[in-house]
């Protein structure tokens, strides 16, 4: 054998490269056109989280995260009514956002708990217009926006107490006609200066949520039927027709089962934990009306006008005690036992059923319209059900549990950045399927979950 052949044999393995070569990723918009993209929705789309709106939340909103990914396939730069760089946050009560901190309760115990970031929210945001006529908003996420608010002319009208200050600060009216008394609707703002080529619609949660948050006490749910601006069906229909008439492609989301969110599930119905002494003393009070207590876990006492002559009873399995209950009163002032939880802190089985039935009707209407107009649909409840069961994403467990579940923000209602990114992926999946697009999913681990001190 000649030596040169030997050398060739010895060098054979070198035909390999040293490092694996990255594949070329195929990315395209399919039949969709994202060049004039907007997202329409409520606080989820806007980035409301931790019970406030701040710039960090906006940059981690469902609308922002989704659009950022869609910029790979031609979506424009993101324009939102930015909050200040102070990042303090603001809600309609003038409060700042929540963070995790230490709170000393009535018994003197300090523990990790949601606390306000600052004594006051960045209230100046509500007294100045964020509108810029040179920039068109690509994100029409407005905290508190209901389906039936889309064509309302008082929604941004500062003269009405029920106006929405988050909308007022972004509406073109505030800039163009301060004090002029001219007030345009959300829809007019959206379509001002031309129709989008593609939009996402995630509305309907706010048509039921305020009612649920009030313990089915105030803030009635939107009516099912009625003219645009009154009933859910025609408000939805009018919006869809507007879009379809201009050949706007869209993805529309259904309403999840809100009662599984941490706001409604963090305090168990039987969270009244008693020692022998307390159980005995409560038995003295309640035994005469047929309620008895045991050592350990007991159902809370709730007021219910239909419950016998005293109007109190024990909470039932499945009933919800809301996160809005004053926990210090529970711990130190016998709220939920001697003093029953008032209606505003409880969702009864009947009320839960009423809310779910309304959501089901709204969702059926949304699905019908999506089918009629060829919109992609996102069944958000599928996502929330997975969360409710608990799932692992790239080695990280997520669930609906408050704080430790890692997907909800500290208000127990809105998703945190991680949750928004996971939900944005459901929108992308739906868009990819409907419009034959190839848009990569988002690495949700790049988004914060809960920050600890």
């Amino acid at each position, binding site marked *: 054998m000649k030596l040169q052949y*030997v050398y060739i044999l*010895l060098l*054979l393995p070198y035909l390999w490269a*040293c490092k694996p070569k990255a594949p070329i990723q195929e990315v395209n918009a399919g039949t969709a056109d994202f060049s004039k993209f907007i997202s329409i929705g409520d606080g989820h789309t806007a980035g409301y989280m931790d019970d406030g709106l701040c710039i960090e939340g906006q940059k981690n909103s469902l609308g922002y995260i989704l659009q950022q990914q869609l910029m790979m396939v031609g979506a424009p730069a993101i324009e939102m009514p930015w909050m200040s760089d102070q990042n303090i946050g603001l809600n309609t009560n003038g409060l700042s956002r929540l963070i995790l901190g*230490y709170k000393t309760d009535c018994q003197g115990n300090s523990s990790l708990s949601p606390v306000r970031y600052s004594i006051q929210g960045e209230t100046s945001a509500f007294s100045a217009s964020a509108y810029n006529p040179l920039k068109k908003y690509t994100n029409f996420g407005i905290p508190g926006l209901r389906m039936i608010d889309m064509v309302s002319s008082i929604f941004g009208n500062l003269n009405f107490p029920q106006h929405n200050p988050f909308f007022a600060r972004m509406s073109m009216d505030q800039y163009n006609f301060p004090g002029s008394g001219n007030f345009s609707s959300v829809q007019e703002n959206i379509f001002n200066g031309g129709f989008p080529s593609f939009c996402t619609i995630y509305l309907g949660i706010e048509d039921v949520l305020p009612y649920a948050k009030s313990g089915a006490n105030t803030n009635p749910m939107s009516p099912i039927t009625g003219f645009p601006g009154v009933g859910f069906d025609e408000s939805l229909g009018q919006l869809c027709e507007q879009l379809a008439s201009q050949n706007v492609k869209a993805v529309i989301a259904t309403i999840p089962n809100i009662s599984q969110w941490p706001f409604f599930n963090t305090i168990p119905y039987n969270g009244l934990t008693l020692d022998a002494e307390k159980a005995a003393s409560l038995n003295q009070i309640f035994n005469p009306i047929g309620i008895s207590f045991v050592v350990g876990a007991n159902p809370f006492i709730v007021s219910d006008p239909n419950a016998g002559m005293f109007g109190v009873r024990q909470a039932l399995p499945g009933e919800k005690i809301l996160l809005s209950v004053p926990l210090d009163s529970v711990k130190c002032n016998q709220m939920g036992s001697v003093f029953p939880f008032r209606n505003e802190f409880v969702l009864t089985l009947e009320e839960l059923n009423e809310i779910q039935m309304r959501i089901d009707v709204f969702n059926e209407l949304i699905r019908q319209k999506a089918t009629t107009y060829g919109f992609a649909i996102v069944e958000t409840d599928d996502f929330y059900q997975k969360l409710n069961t608990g799932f692992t994403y*790239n*080695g990280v467990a997520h669930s609906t549990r408050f704080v430790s579940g890692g997907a909800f923000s500290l208000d127990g209602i809105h998703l945190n950045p991680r949750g928004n990114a996971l939900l944005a*992926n459901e929108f992308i999946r739906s868009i990819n399927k409907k419009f034959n697009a190839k848009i990569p999913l988002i690495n949700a681990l790049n988004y914060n979950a809960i920050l600890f001190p």
Partner: protein
Amino acid sequence: MSMKLTVANAQGFQVNFQGQKQQGMGCAGAAFVQDGSTIFYNPAGMSFAKKSEANLSITPIFGNVMFVDSSTGDVYRTENPVGTPFNAYVLQKSKNHHRLAYGLSITTPFGSTVQYEPGWIGRFAITRLSMKVFHIQPTAAFKITDNISIGAGFVFSPGNVSLQKDLPVQFNDGSYGHAEISGAAMGYGYNLGVFYNPGGVLNVGLSYRSGINMSVSDGQVQFSVPNALAGNFPDGTLSASLALPSVTTLGLHIKPNASWNVLADINYVGWNTYDTLAFDYATNTSSLVDTKSPRMYHNIFAFRGGIQYAVFAKDKVLNVRLGGGFGFSPVQSGYLTPETPDGNRAYVTSGVSYEFNKRFSLDASIYATKITRADKNLETQLNGTFTTIAWAPGIGINYNW
């Protein structure tokens, strides 16, 4: 916690870099005795060694792993330091009993470092794993007849391991918590062999290397977590164990003439002992519970073979070698982890030896492999394709007497 061990030249985490000459021929060698590496490949082969000798070699491993996440298309790579397995053999033919030979080997049959780039998508499964296992094997062989020998060695297996990963709890600045588990391990095993030379051109070898249970009894775990969670993640001790597999090898060697040698090995590797990776923390909390991660390895076959050609130049000999192999992956679908991004593997090797004089010779070899494996891990849901390219050029010196 999940831990597993990886090396470039391995099915699962079994390494076969033993003896530069054998490495040049596809890492086969149960029936071909050329130097002290037969202590590893087949202890019985020592009796058929022509000379007493000592061998020392080192094989730096340059391994690069790329992970392409299936849903995002994002690409992540490892930043592995160079692995440096070495082996040392001393083979002594008994002066008083010509049928007897004994020897000692010190080798690193398991060991490597896998380090993924910062922020990679699987960081909560693993960020860095480093493992070293040393095998110290005193061995003896005895020729029962002129044609058959038997050999046996006892294996002391000290080692150490360090596993790091990020924890999905975040500091106020958004950075993630981190955990490091480290500890020294110890295990014991044995290595048995039968070597048969019926006369003529053929040799047959059969060897059995026992499984070894590497047990970490006093491991340490250290956490870096936000203050608020410090009580949930107490630093402390833990125990764990790792089952290294048994390997049964049947080898054939044919020497049709003075220039050519052809050999082949079949391995049966008893991976199914590695079904779970468990960590038992001395202190448990609601956040820190003992873990049992399924691994579910199954037994596999691997095939290795090579040829050697002797070029005679004047009174010197140059041996050149070419080899390769194929091994099935012990990792079942659904259980692929980034610690051992294993797949069915084909590799090629080549090598060369040169005798400077009667006493000294020098060996060199090179090994190359590329492995591609796509999977979705059932436990972590990590879903994507791992591609590994590994190079291992080795060099060794030999001295005989």
